[in-house]
């Protein structure tokens, strides 16, 4: 900028500059800016980083060998196995459901569509404890099917099937809720073009739809997996807390903690925390990949 012009238009320029300085928050005075940044980071530090750090410090409080011993304990390993089974069942079930529901809801217009979307969201509004309770009421000893199940010697509550069911209920909406807005925004033109060009229904789905939604699908699966692995309240109600049999990893953490085996509890908790951190990294990666910002889940 030429100095003469600045000098000539000095008063106006000064006013403009002052206006620009106060107008944009990015140009808040440095002291305000850094004060707020420090305050925000301090809050995040105390509320979120400290608990995470505490898990790892406590896990290694009695040394590495105690840590490894707690992890290699047979009860820990069987809890791990059950957790993997619950995740491995609930996530694929909800993945198939989420895709089917999103297909029906976004590619077609029918009566009661909004109602259906609302109904799918229900499990998010239900307390985890109630999510477990409903299966006790249906399959428990004094529930609807209790006597019949008893006669046929089938156990659902206080057994593995109950844990899988409760986990499935709690993680029910994740994939559908991720796919519905995504597929809605993509419309139907590409699929229609494929059909017109002679593709079969399956070809259309695997060559057009799936590649279009794969990142959103993965995003839903990541969130679904994290919640399935970490679910506590619902699973706690339907599990009989039988060590080595009906304990998932979060339930095992509780049992060790209540036994005053703190380093053991935190050792198992640290495994779950590592997974939580990986989830955050995966989530960030997928948000970057799809060019979107995080949203309320």
């Amino acid at each position, binding site marked *: 900028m030429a100095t003469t012009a600045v000098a000539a238009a000095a008063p106006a320029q000064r006013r403009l500059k002052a206006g620009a300085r106060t107008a944009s928050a990015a140009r808040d005075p440095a002291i305000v800016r850094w004060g707020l940044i420090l305050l925000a980071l301090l809050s995040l530090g105390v509320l*979120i980083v400290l608990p995470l750090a505490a898990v790892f410090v406590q896990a290694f409080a009695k040394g590495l060998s105690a840590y490894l011993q707690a992890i290699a304990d047979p009860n820990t390993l069987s809890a791990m196995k059950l957790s993997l089974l619950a995740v491995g069942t609930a996530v694929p079930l909800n993945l198939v459901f989420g895709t*089917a529901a999103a297909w029906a809801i976004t590619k077609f217009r029918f009566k009661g569509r909004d109602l259906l979307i609302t109904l799918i969201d229900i499990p998010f509004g239900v307390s985890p*404890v109630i999510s477990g*309770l409903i299966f006790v009421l249906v399959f428990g000893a004094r529930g609807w099917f209790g006597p019949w199940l008893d006669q046929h010697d089938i156990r659902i509550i206080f057994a593995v099937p109950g844990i899988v069911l409760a986990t*499935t209920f709690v993680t*029910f909406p994740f994939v559908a809720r991720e796919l519905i807005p995504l597929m809605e925004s993509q419309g139907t033109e590409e699929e229609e073009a494929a059909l017109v060009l002679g593709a079969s229904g399956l070809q259309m789905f695997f060559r057009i739809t799936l590649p279009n939604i794969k990142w959103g699908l993965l995003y839903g699966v990541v969130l679904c997996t994290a919640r399935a692995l970490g679910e506590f309240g619902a699973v706690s109600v339907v599990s009989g807390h039988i060590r080595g049999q009906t304990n998932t990893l979060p339930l095992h953490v509780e049992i060790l903690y209540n036994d005053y085996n703190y380093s053991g509890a935190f050792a198992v908790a640290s495994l779950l925390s590592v997974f939580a951190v990986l989830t*955050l*990294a995966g989530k960030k990666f997928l948000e970057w990949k799809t060019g979107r910002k*995080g949203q*309320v889940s």
Partner: protein
Amino acid sequence: MSFRNSSGSFFKNSSILPGFWPSFSYTILYLSLIVLIPLSAVFLKSVSVSPEQFWKTISSPQVVASYRLSFGASLIAGAISVVIGFLVAWVLVRYEFPGKALADALVDLPFALPTAVAGIALTSLYTQNGWLGRWLAPLGIKVAFTPLGVVVALTFIGLPFVVRSVQPVLADADQELEEAASSLGANRWQVFTRVIVPLVRPALLTGFALAFARALGEYGSVIFISGNLPMRTEITPLLIVNKLEQYDYAGATAIAAVMLVTSFLLLLLINTIQRRTRKYMEPV
């Protein structure tokens, strides 16, 4: 494709895409089996309880004390989340600083960390010889095993809801509005209270309502730090678990029905706010 002709009234417009009936019927079937039928058990079971018994359960002193704690702590935690969440969202949207991406990712930790892990971690921080508890104890502030501990746990759970509700609104907010206000002579504080706050108010309200609804039902992160002292630090979901452990299905169901009705009303409220917000955000 005869179904399209025969049930033309069901569709608002026709589509040439295949797979409606399989995906639609599967959706309805799976939704009914996993969600609707089991959930209806709560209401069918509570109808089978006599009204006197139902009322006696949900109005017993211990249960009423738990409502007070659950509601009170959730409200306070929601309010704290709104203040801190707004601050964090503001800093993340408006300023640049080293480590910003990491801070942004960490906001979601409460969504990803299993609640039981959060529960024992928070408890270990706030007990008398914990990292934070040891500094608070000399000041006479006890957090673990008091209602304050419940508030701390629920704030941890609620914070991301507020940040993630406010963040997109702040990012989309037209800074020209602020520039217009300041060029018309408003100082920074006036711009903040008269332009920015009204703009994000619906988002703050949504975030608060989401955090509050989640906090009401929260279990895992609370039961460790609360200590579960009868009449003092028992949250409502814990009482459902207690009743179930005593095989008092009717009692557990009655309390669950009260909680379910409350959360459905809250969801309705949240939807209304969001619909209004959307209308408000639409270009004129």
